[in-house]
């Protein structure tokens, strides 16, 4: 039971990370397409400015919880995906630094350098997270000692790549909607229009990804056994539809919320499909890591559950407060900190 609760919490933390960091990764990816001048660029940096740091901690927390609740899965996953993970970390480093460094020096060369870092550092994590999670959904060639017998190239199989492209598009839509909320003037109009164009692409990609998952993975097994679980998928679709409807109606906050629900449900869809496995071995099902053979001791799980039940709601409460108070429209130069 404790293991199951932790498995769900594990999924929720990843979903939280995708929803929150997803939009600033998406904005960074779209920057070269949406920003036409210096003010536009700074608007993008400042639209994510007060939040990116707190958002990234969701990744730390998701990683930390993997470590705490399922240490063997943490060990296997992070060492098994070594090169992809290192790339992800380096990309996130240059992305984070670009926020702080970029506007500090008034030189075109300096700023374009950090703009490039920002875009690459946003696009690459989106892609890698998609590739990595698609591969987790399918499984990795883990041997009896749970050692991954494949490298970076293996991850770039068609299903993995589809997952990567899907994540990039999904985050880009999410980012365009966020930028539409916070920007004013021309760039806001461009963000709205970009969201409108990205939406059908995301729809096609999610359908393709689901169809591919159906034939290529075991994800649907749990759903066919427990049809009420299909509610997660229905919610995902509803979120995506809501994003389109509210975008057309000009209700941007609701559109973004729809996109957030969509992203969270996509993540949860995969995680619930995996249950009770965390890392599937494609070589032999007995070599998979599950919530039973990879979890921490009951005492650790109990203590950590207490910590999570106290602190996660507190975190959500103060982050909600920050979002509520710091996400108004960016009207002019005066409001730019970055």
């Amino acid at each position, binding site marked *: 039971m404790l293991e199951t609760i932790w498995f769900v919490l594990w999924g929720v933390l990843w979903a939280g990370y995708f929803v929150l960091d997803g939009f600033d990764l998406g904005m960074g990816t779209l920057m070269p397409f949406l920003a036409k001048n210096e003010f536009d660029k700074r608007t993008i940096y400042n639209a994510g*400015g*007060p*939040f*990116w*740091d*707190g958002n*990234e*901690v969701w990744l*730390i*927390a998701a*990683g*930390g*919880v*993997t*470590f*705490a*609740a399922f*240490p*063997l899965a*943490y*060990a*296997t*996953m*992070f*060492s098994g995906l*070594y*090169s992809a*993970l*290192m790339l992800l*970390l*380096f990309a*996130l*480093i*240059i992305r*984070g*630094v670009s*926020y*702080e*460094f970029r506007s*500090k*020096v008034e030189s075109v060369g300096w700023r374009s350098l950090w703009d490039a870092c920002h875009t690459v550092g946003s696009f690459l994590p989106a892609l890698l997270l998609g590739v990595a999670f698609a591969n987790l959904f399918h499984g990795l060639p883990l041997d009896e*000692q749970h*050692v991954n017998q494949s490298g970076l190239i293996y991850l770039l199989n068609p299903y993995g790549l589809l997952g990567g492209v899907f994540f990039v598009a999904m985050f880009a839509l999410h980012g365009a909607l966020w930028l539409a909320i916070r920007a004013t003037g021309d760039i806001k109009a461009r963000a709205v229009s970009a969201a409108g164009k990205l939406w059908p692409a995301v729809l096609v990609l999610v359908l393709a990804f689901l169809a591919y998952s159906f034939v290529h993975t075991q994800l649907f097994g749990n759903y066919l056994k427990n049809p009420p679980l299909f509610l997660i998928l229905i919610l995902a679709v509803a979120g995506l539809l809501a994003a389109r409807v509210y975008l057309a109606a000009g209700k941007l906050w609701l559109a973004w919320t729809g996109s957030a629900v969509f992203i969270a449900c996509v993540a949860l869809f995969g995680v619930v499909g995996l249950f009770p496995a965390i890392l599937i071995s494609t070589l032999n099902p007995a070599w998979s890591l599950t919530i039973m053979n990879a979890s*921490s*001791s009951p*005492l*650790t799980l109990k*203590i*950590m559950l207490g*910590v*999570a039940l106290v*602190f*996660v709601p507190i*975190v959500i409460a*103060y*982050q909600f407060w*920050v979002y509520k*108070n*710091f996400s108004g429209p960016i009207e002019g130069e005066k409001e730019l*900190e970055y």
Partner: protein
Amino acid sequence: MDALMLSRLQFAAATMFHFLFVPLTLGLSVLIACMETAYARTGKPVYRRMAKFWGKLFLINFTLGVVTGITLEFQFGTNWSRYSAYVGDIFGSLLAIEATAAFFLESTFIGVWHFGWDKLSPKAHAITAWLVAGASNLSAVWILIANGFMQNPLGFVLRNGRAELDDFVAVITNPWAWNEFVHVVAGGFCVATFFIAGISAWHLLRKQNEELFAKSMRLALTVGFLATVVVAVQGHMHGNLVAKLQPAKMAAMESHWETVKNAPMYLLQIPDEKNERNLVQALPVPSLLSILAFSDPNAEVKGLKDFAPADRPPVGITFIAFRIMVGIGTLMPLLMLFGLWKRDNLASVPTYLKAMVWAMPLPYLGMEAGWTVAEVGRQPWIVQGLMRTADAVSPITAGQAGSSLVAMVLLYTLLGAAGAYLMVTAARKGPQDA
């Protein structure tokens, strides 16, 4: 080189680079919160300008600390997966608690702090500063409890082929961790106060913004003197703990080969690790090592020869790092004390002000040397007495570890250079508008 050695180098590079930024965050966050509190209370604009000026430097430093911290957490999985699987039940939960209870708070409110100058009242902004400062130091608590477990493992039981949690209270009340916490946080205040003092001295020499920098200087000298004394005094107590629980590290710190009572300390000493002796050994202070290690001149201090060669830490590095740390630890309070003595007439001692500009790297160097003693001196163990570093490394190839090491060093060097450039530029420019 094999994956083990490359992973060790990578961990050293990642940690040492990360720890260029963490100590300043620990100390400066609190000092900025004090400045903001002064502003909220008195309404004097100079305090706001102070907080904004130091805050600008703080943010550059903070960002580098945050992004390099992520690498650290994930490295346990990427490069030390066997370690992670073996002690994750305890170690992993400490890192997870750090993220949920402290790091979230710190990282969320740094955004509020940064973007809230005009949105929040001075009082609310000061509270935000205290939240960031409190959360940073709370982070240090959990990280050092985690490191404390590696240095002095407590509260576990060997079960199911791994170390499992047995007594959570024992883990979080580990005396080693709390000694380390005091030492590191006081060290953080040394870094922050030398940072403020050095930059203030530079401006005072040029007679720019004298009110602001005189106030900053006074704050730095007062807090700095206290911090340097705490580091030194508590460092001695910490040394007692090392002598008791990690005698091999203690012996390596002093390149002490033979077990003797009334062990002297040699002021001039050159270790010769290969031949298990010291090449040069002169100027003994009688019984000083016994006193340093056990606060008792008659105490017996174990020599390295009492440990099998496979159980000894690298002597040269540990020895040199320890001497650097202690040397700097002795010099720092003297520098602060002199400044305090002349505090009302600093302009009359320009040489001192110049020296303080050049003294800025000292506590940084002391920090890095201190961690080198702590981590290299613990070898060959990754968890003292429980797991060897050689058994902890991931099943990765030397190619993987080597390429990520090269990439990391390159990236960090560039980032470090860019960050240093920005810090120096902003520090020289001085305070801008209010």
